[in-house]
């Protein structure tokens, strides 16, 4: 069996650099004190190497461009690579953070020979602006080691591959540092020299795990691989026999599609909160509608209701000849809380979700916002609007024993005070804050009754101007 290993020595770096027009020396750093994790070839030419402290790297390349390592992002990028390869190779293994292993035989059939496969992979990587080190090998471990050591060759020849493997320096073998030291003390420097020693004698002197590792490299011990499965995706497509011109006409065919979705979700015990509806028009255009719910859901009826509302506010701009329903986001199911098994369950949370989902479907996702307190002394910054969130469990909010006196009606912007107050009711309260974002305030606030009887929240600012900032009820 022939294996292919794709090693991306600086995956994240390539990804970051893609967005730059002119290549500059770039490094990915991690930790505190920051250490270089990946360095681009340009940076490496100037002496920056992985494992180096950022301080050292900067003394070598003062204008080094720096990006922080985000392991999750790295994984996403690796999965993207897996996805395009999956189109050709079914037997694919992910080696996070930066490698992919392929069983090459199916690909060889597709490309005819190794040379063209090799070239195709290299070109594909270069199209994606990824640095790639490629190797073939007879066992998964051997292939990986060769690729990582940049000793890959475009060959299937067993003798050549064995020879290359034998010449691999021990430092490149991913053996434990302790084991490496022992082997070095025995005067052994290359993998081939270790292979020559009798396994039984070797096992006595090194630990059994090391022997197993060596045997997996050689192939004398099985090395089962966990093949990668692309993440699940629900997709249904329907072609209409005659064009649909009204949204109502779409609802009927949607019904079975959603039922199927419900079944799929039920079977896998997950929920979703995001559907994607793709409408294909006769003229070749497509229109994509994404339908969101504010909470996870699996019932077809609930989805149908949402889509109906959504379509009502989005009239069709052309006749539709086909339609597809796609779901890629799946959420684990919560066990319902606050409900008892036998009693009546009136779930407030569910009612809230239904209401907000319907409002969002009708008005658009962004149109619905929620108010929240924000920790800032400046009144105009003491509150924020946030996208809708699921209501938190009671008790999570901060409770004020004696909240500061603030008017419920805060003016969008302070207005100059026109008449002098009749009665001063409270104050002054001094607020000086916000020097850090250029919107510093320096004000003395008072509560006062104006001649017309209204109770106003007024302030005098540092330049001695008087303003009304809000009204008390």
């Amino acid at each position: 069996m022939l294996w292919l290993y794709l090693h991306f020595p600086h995956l994240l770096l390539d990804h970051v650099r893609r967005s730059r027009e002119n290549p500059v020396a770039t490094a990915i750093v991690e930790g505190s004190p920051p250490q270089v994790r990946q360095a681009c070839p340009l940076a490496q030419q100037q002496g920056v190497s992985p494992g180096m402290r950022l301080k050292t790297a900067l003394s070598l390349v003062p204008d080094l461009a720096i990006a922080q390592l985000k392991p999750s992002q790295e994984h996403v990028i690796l999965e993207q690579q897996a996805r395009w390869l999956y189109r050709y190779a079914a037997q694919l293994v992910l080696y996070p953070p930066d490698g992919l292993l392929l069983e090459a035989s199916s690909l060889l059939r597709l490309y005819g020979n190794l040379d063209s496969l090799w070239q195709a992979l290299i070109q594909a990587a270069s199209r994606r602006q990824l640095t790639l080190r490629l190797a073939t090998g007879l066992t998964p471990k051997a292939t990986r080691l060769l690729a990582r050591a940049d000793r890959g060759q475009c060959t299937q020849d067993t003798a050549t591959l064995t020879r290359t493997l034998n010449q691999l320096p021990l430092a490149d073998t991913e053996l434990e540092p302790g084991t490496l030291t022992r082997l070095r003390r025995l005067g052994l420097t290359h993998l081939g020299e270790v292979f020559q020693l009798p396994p039984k004698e070797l096992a006595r002197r090194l630990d059994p795990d090391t022997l197993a590792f060596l045997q997996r490299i050689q192939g004398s011990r099985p090395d089962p691989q966990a093949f990668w499965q692309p993440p699940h995706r629900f997709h249904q497509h329907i072609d209409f026999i005659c064009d649909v011109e009204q949204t109502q006409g779409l609802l009927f065919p949607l019904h079975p599609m959603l039922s199927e979705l419900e079944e799929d979700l039920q079977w896998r015990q997950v929920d979703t909160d995001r559907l994607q509806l793709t409408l294909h028009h006769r003229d070749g255009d497509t229109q994509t509608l994404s339908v969101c719910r504010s909470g996870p859901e699996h019932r077809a009826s609930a989805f149908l209701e949402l889509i109906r509302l959504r379509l009502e506010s989005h009239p069709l701009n052309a006749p539709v000849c086909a339609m597809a329903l796609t779901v890629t986001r799946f959420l684990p199911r919560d066990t319902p809380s606050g409900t008892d098994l036998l009693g009546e369950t009136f779930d407030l949370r569910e009612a809230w979700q239904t209401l907000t989902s319907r409002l969002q479907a009708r008005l658009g996702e962004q149109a619905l916002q929620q108010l929240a307190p924000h920790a800032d002394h400046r009144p105009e910054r003491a509150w924020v609007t946030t996208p809708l969130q699921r209501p938190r469990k009671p008790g999570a909010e901060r409770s004020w024993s004696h909240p500061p006196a603030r008017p419920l009606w805060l003016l969008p912007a302070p207005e100059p005070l026109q008449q002098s107050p009749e009665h001063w009711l409270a104050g002054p309260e001094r607020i000086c804050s916000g020097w850090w974002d250029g919107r510093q305030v320096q004000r003395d606030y008072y509560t006062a009754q104006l001649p017309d009887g209204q109770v106003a929240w007024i302030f005098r600012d540092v330049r001695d101007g008087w303003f009304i900032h809000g009204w008390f009820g």
Partner: protein
Amino acid sequence: MGYAELTCFSNFTFLTGASHPHELAERAIALGYQALAITDACSVAGIPRAWAALRGSPVKLITGSYFEVEASEGAPLTFTLLARDRTGYSQLCQLITTARRRADKGRYRLEREDLDRHCLNRCLCLWHPLSGNEQEPSDSLADTGRWLQARFSGSVWITVTRTLEPNEERQLERARFLSSQLGCAIVASGQVHMHARDCQPLQDVLTALRHNTPVEQAGHHLFQNGERYLRPLSVLKRLFPDSWLQETLRIAQLCTFDPGELRYEYPSDLVPSHQTPASYLQQLTRDGERRRFPQGTPITIQALIRKELTLIGELRYEHYFLTLHDIVTFARSQGILCQGRGSAANSAVCYCLGITEVDPTQVELLFERFISKDRDEPPDIDVDFEHERREEVIQYIYRRYGRDRAALAATVIRYRPRSAVRDVGKALGFDPAQVEQFLSGIDWRDQASNWRQQILDKHLTRNPAIADQFFTLVNRILGFPRHLSQHVGGFVISAGPLSELVPVENATMADRTVIQWDKDDLESLGLMKVDVLALGMLSAIRKALSLVSRKLGHPFRLQDIERENREVYDMLCEGDSIGVFQVESRAQMNMLPRLRPRCYYDLVIQVAIVRPGPIQGDMVHPYLQRRASTEPVVYPNTGVQGVLERTLGVPIFQEQVIKLAMVAAGFSAGEADRLRRAMAAWKSDGDLTPFRDKLIRGMLERGHDEEFAERLYRQICGFGGYGFPESHAASFALLVYVSAWLKCHHPAAFYCGLLNSQPMGFYSPSQLVQDARRHKVTVLPVDINHSQWDHTLQARDEHLRLGLRLIKGLSTEAGRRICEQRPGSGYQSASELRQRATLQQRDLELLAGAGAFASISNNRHQAYWQLLGHEHEPGWLLGEACPGYGSGPDIALPTPSEGQNMLSDYTSLGLSLQRHPLALLKEQGHLKHCLNAEQLLDQEPGRPVQVAGLVTGRQRPGSAAGVTFVTLEDESGNVNVVVWLETARRQRKPLLTARLLQVKGVIEREGNTIHVMAGRLTDLSHLIEHLNVRSRDFQ
């Protein structure tokens, strides 16, 4: 109307207070306050500085401290205690000590019960019932109030402040009600966190740092406004009823404690009951005289001793000298070598007491020069001990005086430029990696405007206003105390419990405690400390001396060394000083052939001249020229002549500079003393510019030329923080001579002593061993049958046998057993070694890796293979015949090559006795055109040459702008490479990362000192891939 501020945090409430104590003090004076209390959280660390700033002003300093007691539920109980008098102060210190000792370093935990356990009857309690107690029901508050009243016999006040925050009216109402319930007066206070309102941004930054969040997200952790500052009286009058303000004055009047009253009481247990301290000191001195001058004390010395004793008596320093004598006597009884230095150390009395070995008959160091009667400052003597045995001395001090009477002084760790930039950057939410980049790129000498531009250039922020703010904040926070750490060895010892004098808190190190004051605080309060320091060279010298004694067959002591030996100076003049104390650095080595020391005093100068002070003051060249008689020695007047005569008219030492300020610029003694302090503090927060004008004006008025004045000022700046006084140089010079003498006359013993005292000094064991071999010392390898744990001398004490201690990772315990269990005929096999010395597999492997089996096996690889094979075999009983190893099938392992052996040596020993790696590479045909260090000696200056070697050092001395010194080691010695800034900039990679470096350059020489001025640098590290060579870089 008057006011006394009774609750005020300085920046010694770390990350809370936003002003220095002296800023608060100055502000209080300016505002016309009657008194100012400094009440840091469970601390009196800020008191000495506030006291110094308020001394002589009408504002009275009140000493106090703020406390929070965690409650099991609800808000904590918070109050401020003020010391009424000396007794109250002691009570306060003890309470702080209790709370601090209970918690980890930097924290405190006070419990309610502590107020029961401690007597606090001379303290006043300012209770803060309303802070954070919005919800607490009045009844429970009143209960707490009554509880406090009971503890402080009624001396409790309700403290109220107004900071114009919400719900203030309600709070005042509650305070009034509480006051009527308890019959307890209300007093106004400011809850001060800063001296002026414009410190608010800094206070916000500190708060954000304390909560580990950017300012922007700190939200309600920040104060709503900047009212917690020292407010003018007119403002206070508007805010508080008169009676509440009057109450502040009444309280201030009750507090009469002045920190100036604190006097150090030395332990009296040192003086026998029938003697006075003076008579006892006299007696000890006389005993010492007999020892030091068996032929009778010379008349001049007798007079000197009388004079010194009189001075000591007048200043009542007897106890201080007696304490030192006691410690030094203990060290001597344990055979621990020690040497005193500093003002007063190099006196005839100290010589007689054994505190120093500097012989007053050989050096005319006037004691008066070091102790001044005018300046009311304690004498300063540092005593260096062998670094490996200083702990014994410390433990002795703890034993002798008890842990409650002896503790280390604190060192205040302050914000330095880097930490300031980092922390302010963090508070402003800058990306930490970008901040690092900014830091590494910054040129600290650049002007302010440039800084700001750099912040914008590096995209730390796009907002110019923030860049300005950043800059301002960094400058403000510089020098702010960050935490208390332990001083390297400054002990404070007292007659009574120390915690009655100053609070004691925990240090990071287990079992170490520090007091809350640092050495400047002690000095300003006139308290004495004893510095117990560690010095590696003393260990090395003691070890070398004992080896010499063994060789000679009789005890050979420090004082037996022949003074002013010509050969020793000849050696030093050659720059042959690797391993010699103080003069072994690259810069010192270059200076030796230029200065050509011929006597002890030349060494004193040599030690002091290669320092930032004289170099920045351009004093080196003039001195050397005058010394070589190419420049005449002239003095502008006799006053200056008196100061500078011993250094040929060129100021070298810190004392001379201070004296010159007096003689040549007309500084008064007090001014000169302030200059000295400013120089010492310059590094952290000082500003010397106020002295500049006075100095230069004074010198011009007295007829000195401006150029000389400017140079002197630059020298003063250079001394800042690195001041090197003659009094220290004199003691160091003695050790320079002693170590040089050992190197010259007993090289084997010298290197052996040095190697047995590692880690210390400038050079690695590898470099020392190479130097030893160049000095014709035969060095023998580590061997299980010949080595001891330490390095030893063998073959009539002429051969140096490396010890097992060199093997990296080998435990001392295993090493000891190998030596103890060794049979007379030596170990015959590895199995015998394993059994007799009951060694672990790991130890055996380390020995095999180090080639220590050479006497029983000639192939390292095979020996190791056999070892590994028997790891899991059952052991044999001792006494049974040990079957030889090698029972397994024959395995073809590669025979170790010379390179592999060398590699192994470097990996496990850090050095190799085989050929030098460079010799090997050259044999393999590499580095064809490279000359070695020896060949360079025959080259003409100005010739282009190529050299190559292992990089063993990179240095960028502050004194030589932009130059990098690289030391290359080859098979014949060391090559000194000089890389100019431009060259360095173009070839950063090889310069900074190469382990094996090839240099094309031009040769330059001065006497026997040879430099290669680098042109092209080539990194050849790939030739020595696995070789582990340590380079000493940029320290």
